[in-house]
């Protein structure tokens, strides 16, 4: 029987190499062997999916690889989840995410969602074709620190600006960040958004920065 650290290292490698069945087997084995669920995620699954993200950024992996990795990661997390305490799973902060009304593209949004969950955030996914008011309503219901909206079409992109304006008008106590293929950083700035990310990896960093600031502000208050 391999040592525990070696087992989690093997888990990480299996995820990086997209060996799906091996990922699930090693996840179960690690839990059966008494490893804590936090260790399984932090030292097994998270490094593996992070490495997948790195390979994607480097142009070694593409969407098929990223999606398969995210899919098996999600399945593995569901194996671990019953063993997690409430705060450990998604306790880092909350995000409301969706694709705006009239737009049905969701692959990028789904990858962002999964990467945020990997990083410890609770993600409230509104799906596709989402009316702007639904973003606002979900933020009020959940108290999420961040509202993340995407648009993949030039015809639906203006709604991102409308969402920012709606959030300001409603004095929503959350940051609004935007993304999607036709969106650029300068456009997001024109829209008045609180942030923009071109991909899932930077989206996680952006949300971490924003949530840290929001929580620091709430603590000071």
């Amino acid at each position, binding site marked *: 029987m391999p040592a525990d650290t070696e087992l989690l290292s093997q888990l990480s490698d299996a995820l990086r190499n*997209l060996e*799906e069945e091996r990922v699930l087997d090693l996840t179960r084995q690690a839990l059966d062997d008494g490893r804590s669920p936090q260790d399984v995620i932090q030292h097994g699954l998270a490094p593996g999916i992070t490495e997948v993200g790195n390979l994607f950024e480097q*142009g070694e992996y*593409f*969407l*098929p*690889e990223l*999606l*398969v990795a995210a*899919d098996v990661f999600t399945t593995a997390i569901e194996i671990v989840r019953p063993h997690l305490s409430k705060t450990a799973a998604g306790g880092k902060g909350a995000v409301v995410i969706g694709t705006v009304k*009239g737009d*049905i593209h*969701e*692959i990028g949004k*789904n990858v962002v969602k999964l990467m945020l969950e990997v990083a410890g955030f609770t993600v409230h996914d509104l799906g*596709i074709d989402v009316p702007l008011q639904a973003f606002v309503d979900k933020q009020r219901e959940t108290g999420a620190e961040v509202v993340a909206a995407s648009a993949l079409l*030039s*015809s639906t*992109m*203006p709604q991102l*600006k409308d969402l920012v304006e709606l959030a300001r008008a409603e004095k929503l106590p959350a940051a609004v960040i935007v993304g999607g*293929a*036709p969106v650029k950083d300068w*456009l997001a700035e*024109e829209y008045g958004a609180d942030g923009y990310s071109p991909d899932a990896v930077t989206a996680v960093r952006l949300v971490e920065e924003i949530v840290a600031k929001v929580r620091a502000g709430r603590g000071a208050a």
Partner: protein
Amino acid sequence: MMNSRERMEAAFQCKEVDRVPVFCEQGGINRRALGITYYEMVTDGEKNAMTDLAWHDVIGDDGVGVYFDTGVLAEAFGQPLLYLKEEPPYPDPAQYILKSPDDYHKIERIDLMAAPRFREMLKGTDIIAQRAGDEVLPRTLSIEPFVTLGGMRGMQQLLMDCRRYPDDVRVGLERVTDMEIEYCQILIDHGVRWIMLCHDYGNASLMSQKMWMDLEGDCLRRLHRAIREKGCYLLVHDCDPNPYVDAAFELGDFDAFCLWSLPKGMADWREFKAKYGSVCLNGVWEPTPLGTQRTYDQVKAESRQMIADLGPTGFILGPGCEFPQNGAFINARAMVDASKEAAGVKVEPRPLSSQAATVSA
């Protein structure tokens, strides 16, 4: 002066033109020329044809033809679509007909003439060919088999299948290709003289070049060959960042390449033209800035520069993907005006609206 048909043929053959042709790649905005709804435009061949002819009359561009949307063939295979009044229809995500990798093997030949919207496309094509076939070079759009297959399986699931079940995906692609070939050939028989074939999966935004060629290469070779053997011009379109241009040339002959993003490693479009000058280049406007973020004057000035750098032979000016359907008409006109001015044709000044900021963003 050449007419539009002569101009486009000369451009495709990289021969001398009277002025650089303009193709706006209008796929939704042109419905406003006659004030019809999107729904009408994608279900009624006569209205589709007449609104594109009206667009041609108003704007003066050279790309005239019938195009509905990317779901026509998937729907013919039995995939339910959701129809909206003012947006293109799309596959119903709750009812994808390919529910497992096994289902790729169940895709069967279909009778295209039994598909109502395909018949409407033919009706529209007949109208353009008969009314204006001497003046314009009738066009249509064909999509690579991956797009149709994604419409029946769900794109996200299809991409995962490409990794997990490539042999099954390959079967599905081959079956769809059989019908895509027939689709193109029937349209050519009804008067289409150039086809824009979308290679939308052939870029780094979606999959590796190796995966793309391994899975779809043979299908695209067959499709390219089938179109060229009918004497039809073929324009390859790839509208995402980092297109696989060299790979596209391995698929067989074609006449033009429609792009807005340079292939990886290239510094500018002049370098592209120098390397790939054997085919006509169509582009190179990025659609969103062209349609929604520039003034008329800016579009005209930048278009003039594109023409100077990349024309006059072997170049068709336009966006590298669909002109935004919420975009500014006047910017489409600006491209045509730029083409005319560059050729020394007098263009009426537009003092009242030339500085107008675009509305949408």
